[in-house]
Structures are given as structure tokens and as C-alpha cells.
């Protein structure tokens, strides 16, 4: 059925027995779920029991490329991960760029499943069909970057793809990320799952050609896409995602001092122009990406001189304004520290901001912070609290358990905790874009702006949806989520998707040229199928309407200052959107997928 793009094989690695097997992927799964996120969800559904704990040896990591991963098109870098999240204690999907996905596919595999638990610290070398287990005990305590370099060296000088974890993941810090060739599976704490399995990293190198069905057409599409991206993504090339800092702040949606307000007074010191003129060193590009949106920043003077990190919007927002920090150099330093230790900058920014608010309110003291004066705006406190989390010291030991556990252990802190399903907020204030509130509430992995559906453009520009309106947001969020679900299942970066016609009214020529199979007109249906399959998993793990609600600060407190002063998203307002959303999805009013929806989406044979 497929003349290209897929390899049709899956590599399964059992760390307990130190054995690997190669399996065939059913064509039916590919046809109905596309690849990437869809296939990862399917294998998770089949193999992870609802009561499996994230650090049990019954938990697994499901890595899947999409059909476009590794193809000669712009930014075909993405691959997907599913696992039981240490942070949220439920299903997690995550995507990453880097070289690993394309290399895995070049090695002959569409996916890889890691299961079991190694006896001693281990790393894996995958070179085409050759799989080697090696001892990594000497690398304990190594940073993500040190580990990455060691693994790269282990490939004997050949370029490959590398996954690595840092010391936080070794300590089972539940907000640890997996480094992927300096990109990341950032959210949800997947790094700690690798840590629990004593797997310090994986290097992969593939030497095979990835076939495509119509090479001439693919070449033609590539040339046109690259030409378009030169103009359509010129701002990404120059400024990257930090270009949003000034805009989001002016729109009154910048998380500020633990979301106490939504406008930060000093964005001039941390915006894209400051980054570009004072800190930018060079651009970073993922595999085959002409946009190169990554911005390598280096601090040239001051107390953080020499600090270096690739600083993105979400990181700036959550380690910066959300902690009251207006020193870009300190943000770069904090970013670097998180990267080295192996902490997700977004969950870490939320954890530090919570600590600072608790401290200022007198709910914790220096006895809890290891002597740190944990006030908003104190850059040294920001760095010190990150260290506490990474080393599980003082209050950092509780924060390392993730917001899920913080709320349960300290229910009196609930008014100051910003999370949904255990995942802390992204760097957008939902009281300023109500659709964004629904995004956080209904995202299949917690308060995420990507999986949940990034509504802000539609809420400003579509001509249909006022940002503060409630009606219509259910359908809007459903559509964006389904779009994202099929995009994540394809293996292509979202930044370039427009150049290949992957909107919510997608063109099919790329898929046909790559695979030889005409997925049209079903791409959006596949997105809906993938999203609903994930919700079925969540339902099985106990997720219901009560888990889709927003935290108290959003529903009970109006924004006190700035352009969105007075805005609030009360529980009643939110319920109007949520009811409409469930209806648009074909879920019950308790958020449970209904039988007729399973049938309509063709999921019956997949979820027996």
C-alpha cells in the first residue's frame, strides 16, 4: 500500500533481558493513525495498564517517527514520545526535533519501544540493525550535554542522533526532560522514566535511504516550500520565538509573578530586540530546516558572563516575568542550568514562581528555602531554587515531585498553584484569551498550549472569535487540537507546516508524493481519531470533567493591572465553553468518549 516514507518496522528494546526484537507495524494502524503521535498512542493503549506507575518497570517509552520524518523536505525532524508521565501520573505525549528521529528512520525503524529496567546504568548504541548495550556507570552525574557528547563519541565520529538525560532524571525529579540533540522532549518528566530504567542515553545512526514514492514531486514541493519560508518565516529566522515576548505582554497575557497579573513592566529588557542586539550569538537549525528558529544566546558581561543557552519564548516568560526577573542574562543562566541538570524550563519556572509567592506571603520561610531570600525579582534566588529542585534539597524535594503532589501534600497552597491535571501552565494568561483557558483545560497532557490547541491567532485575527467570547470556542479548540494531532502524527515541525499546506483544510499532495497513498480527505479525521484515542486512554486512567477544570486563580481572581485589567474566567463562564467543547467532540457532559463517537471515528477495531 505504501511506496515510500514508512519503513514498516518497530524496534523493541527490553532493558531487563538486554535483548532487542524487530516487529512489523500493522498497515491498518498506519492507515488509520498515520504515525508519530497516533501510533505512539495506539501502542500505549495496548501495552500500558491504567494502574501502571510511571516508575514501574511496566511503564514503557514509545518513540514514533511520522511518515515525513527524515524526508528531503524542510524541517522533517519531528518524532513523538508516549509514556506514563511522572509529572502528571497519566498518559503523556511529547514531541521533539533534533536528528534522532530522522536517524532512527534511516536505520530502518518507524518506531522504538523501550521497556523493562536495566540492572546497572546503561547506554544504547543503535547502528542500523545492530543494537549494543553498554555500561554507563561512569557517566552518573553527567549533564545532558556531557552525556550527549559521550554518546556522540561512541558513534566513532559519525553523525547520529542522541537522547540523553541529566542528573535530575537520575534522581527521579518528575519534571526532568529528555535531551534530543539539544532539542527536547520537554514536558511531563519523561527524563525521569529513563532515569527509573537506568538508561542514561541512546545514540542512533542510520545509513539507509528512506524511500519516497514520487521523488520528482517531492523535489518540486521542497523547492517551493523553501522559497515560501524565506519570506513567511523571516521573523522566526531573525528573532525566533522570543519575538512573542513584547506582543504577548502588550496583549496583557504575560504570566507575571506567578500569574498574579498579566503585564510585566520591564519587557524592554528581555524582548527579542534586546536578545538580538545584546545576547544573540548564532542561529540553530534542526534537521533540514531552512528557518533555523533556534537562537543561541551568550551573556557577554555582568555576573552571568559566559552563560549560554538557546532561549525560547516559553522559557523567557516563565523563568523571567513569572519570577519577576527582568535580567536577560539571568534568564540565559537559569536556562543553561535547567538544561545541564535536565529540568523542563516551563515546569521549573512555575515551581520557582510558586516558591517566590509563598515566600512573599509568609507561607514559607528561609527554613524551607535553604536560607534563600526567595523574593520575586531576585535572580540569585531563581538560580538557587533551580539547584534545590535538581538536588532535591529543602523545598526543592517537594517541588521535584511535580505540582500534582504539591497540591495533594499542601492543599492550603492551592490558590497559588497554576496547573491542570498536574502540568503547570504555559506562558500565556488564559484570562486574557478565553479559548486559551479551554486549551489548558482540555489538552490531553495537562495545561499545554501545543497539544491543547494554540488559539491566540484565531482569537485575534479570524474575524469569528472575540478573545473574550465564550460561544464558538468549543468548536475552535476542537479544530485546532485535531489539526495539531495530525501534524504531530506526520513528523514535521509545526513552524513550517503552512509551507506544505497542512492547515485545518489540508492539501494532500505531500502525503501522496511521500507515501504513494492518498490520505485525503481524511487528515483532519485522523487528527480527531488520534485526539479521541488519547482521551479514551485518559478516561481509562480516571480522567473526567472534574480534571478538565481551571485552577482557582483563573476562576476566582480578576487580573489586577495592565491591558487586561478586570478580566476573569469564572467557573460558570468556563463551563459554557466546556459544555460546547464536549458536544463538539461527542463526549458526555462528564468528559467521557461515547460509543457512537468511537464508531463515527472508526476507532472500534483499535480500542477493543
Amino acid at each position: 500500500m505504501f511506496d515510500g516514507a514508512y519503513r514498516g518496522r518497530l524496534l523493541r528494546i527490553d532493558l531487563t533481558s538486554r535483548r532487542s526484537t524487530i516487529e512489523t507495524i500493522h498497515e491498518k494502524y498506519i492507515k488509520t493513525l498515520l504515525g508519530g503521535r497516533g501510533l505512539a498512542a495506539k501502542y500505549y493503549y495496548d501495552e500500558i495498564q491504567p494502574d501502571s506507575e510511571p516508575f514501574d518497570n511496566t511503564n514503557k517509552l514509545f518513540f514514533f517517527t511520522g511518515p515525513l520524518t527524515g524526508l528531503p523536505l524542510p524541517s522533517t525532524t519531528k518524532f513523538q514520545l508516549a509514556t506514563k508521565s511522572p509529572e502528571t501520573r497519566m498518559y503523556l505525549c511529547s514531541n521533539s526535533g533534533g536528528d534522532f528521529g530522522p536517524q532512527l528512520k534511516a536505520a530502518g525503524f518507524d518506531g522504538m519501544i523501550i521497556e523493562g529496567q536495566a540492572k546497572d546504568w546503561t547506554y544504547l548504541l543503535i547502528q542500523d540493525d545492530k543494537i549494543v548495550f553498554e555500561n554507563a556507570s561512569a557517566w552518573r552525574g553527567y549533564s545532558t550535554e556531557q552525556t550527549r557528547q559521550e554518546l556522540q563519541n561512541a558513534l566513532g565520529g559519525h553523525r547520529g542522533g542522541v537522547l540523553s538525560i541529566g542528573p535530575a532524571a537520575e534522581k527521579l525529579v518528575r519534571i526532568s526532560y529528555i535531551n534530543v540533540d539539544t532539542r527536547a522532549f520537554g514536558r511531563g518528566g519523561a527524563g525521569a522514566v529513563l532515569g527509573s530504567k537506568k538508561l542514561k542515553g541512546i545514540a542512533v545512526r542510520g545509513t539507509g535511504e528512506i524511500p519516497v514514492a514520487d521523488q520528482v514531486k517531492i523535489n518540486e514541493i521542497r523547492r517551493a516550500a523553501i522559497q515560501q519560508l524565506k519570506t513567511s518565516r523571516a521573523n522566526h529566522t531573525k528573532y525566533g520565538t522570543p519575538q512573542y515576548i513584547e506582543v504577548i505582554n502588550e496583549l496583557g497575557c504575560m504570566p507575571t509573578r506567578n500569574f498574579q497579573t498579566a503585564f510585566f513592566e520591564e519587557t524592554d529588557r528581555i524582548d527579542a530586540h534586546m536578545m538580538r542586539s545584546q545576547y544573540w550569538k548564532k542561529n540553530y537549525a534542526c534537521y533540514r530546516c531552512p528557518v533555523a528558529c533556534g537562537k543561541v544566546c551568550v551573556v557577554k558581561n555582568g555576573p552571568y558572563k559566559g552563560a549560554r543557552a538557546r532561549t525560547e519564548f516559553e522559557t523567557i516568560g516563565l523563568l523571567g516575568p513569572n519570577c519577576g526577573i527582568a535580567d536577560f542574562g539571568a534568564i540565559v543562566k537559569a536556562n543553561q542550568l535547567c538544561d545541564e541538570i535536565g529540568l523542563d524550563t516551563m515546569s521549573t519556572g512555575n515551581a520557582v514562581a510558586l516558591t517566590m509567592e509563598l515566600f512573599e506571603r509568609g507561607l514559607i520561610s528561609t527554613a524551607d528555602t535553604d536560607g534563600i531570600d526567595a523574593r520575586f525579582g531576585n535572580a540569585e534566588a531563581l538560580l538557587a531554587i533551580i539547584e534545590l529542585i535538581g538536588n532535591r534539597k529543602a523545598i526543592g524535594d517537594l517541588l521535584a515531585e511535580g505540582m500534582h503532589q504539591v497540591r495533594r501534600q499542601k492543599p492550603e497552597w492551592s490558590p497559588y498553584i497554576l496547573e491542570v491535571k498536574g502540568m503547570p501552565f504555559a506562558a500565556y494568561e488564559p484570562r486574557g484569551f478565553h479559548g486559551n483557558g479551554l486549551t489548558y483545560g482540555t489538552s490531553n497532557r495537562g495545561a499545554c498550549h501545543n497539544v491543547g490547541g494554540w488559539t491566540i491567532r484565531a482569537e485575534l485575527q479570524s474575524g469569528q472569535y472575540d478573545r473574550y467570547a465564550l460561544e464558538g470556542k468549543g468548536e475552535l479548540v476542537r479544530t485546532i487540537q485535531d489539526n495539531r494531532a495530525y501534524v504531530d502524527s506526520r513528523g514535521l515541525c509545526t513552524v513550517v507546516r503552512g509551507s506544505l499546506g497542512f492547515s485545518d483544510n489540508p492539501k494532500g499532495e505531500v502525503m501522496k508524493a511521500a507515501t504513494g497513498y492518498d490520505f485525503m480527505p481524511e487528515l483532519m479525521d485522523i487528527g480527531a481519531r488520534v485526539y479521541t484515542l488519547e482521551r479514551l486512554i485518559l478516561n481509562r486512567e480516571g480522567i473526567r470533567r472534574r480534571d478538565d477544570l481551571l485552577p482557582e486563580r483563573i476562576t476566582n481572581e480578576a487580573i489586577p493591572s495592565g491591558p487586561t485589567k478586570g478580566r476573569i474566567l469564572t467557573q460558570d463562564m468556563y463551563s459554557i465553553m466546556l459544555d460546547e467543547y464536549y458536544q463538539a467532540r461527542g463526549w458526555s457532559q462528564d468528559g467521557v468518549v461515547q460509543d457512537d463517537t468511537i464508531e463515527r471515528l472508526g476507532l472500534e477495531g483499535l480500542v477493543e
Partner: protein
Amino acid sequence: MNGACGDNHPRETTIDRPEFINVRIKYLSAIRDKTNRRREEVQFPRGATLADVDSWIRNRHSLSLRDRRIMATLNGKGWMQLPERIETPLVDGDEIALFPILSGG
């Protein structure tokens, strides 16, 4: 119509005249590269609409509110979502912001 003020300059004190309204126009993020300033305070005749602002910006900066590559808001709301869209009448103190199209962070 008067335009004045930019980065690092004191805002020009506009003289209150009943036949004019004062409008602030902000140029955010990469749009600033095209205007070489963050904002301008501009006086328009009373009764002016967003279309008048659009004409003024076209003449001064070769930019347009109607350009699909640009987002433009009036007091924080997208102009396309306003009932009268580009014909929306302005009032004294209105704030217009222009920025590149957003696509997620």
C-alpha cells in the same frame, strides 16, 4: 494629521483641539524594524475610522492593517472581530497595535 514621537524621544505634547482625537499607534516586535520606532501619537480628525489610520500608516511606513501577514488590534481586540471592522470609528485615547502574525511559541 500629526505624527510624532519614537524610541527614546519624549512624547510630543499634543494640543487638545475639539475637532481632533489623539490615537496611539504601537509597532511591536519585528514591525518595529520597519518603522524604526516603538510608537507614535497621532492626531486624527474627529470621526476618523480605522481605515483612516490604515491610509496614514500606508503613506508613512508602507504597512497596512489589512495585510494578512500583520496582526492589528484596536484596544487589544483584532480589528476583524469588531462589528464595523475597518470602518470602526475611533475615539480619543484609542490604542492601535501592529505586530507580525503569531503562530505559537
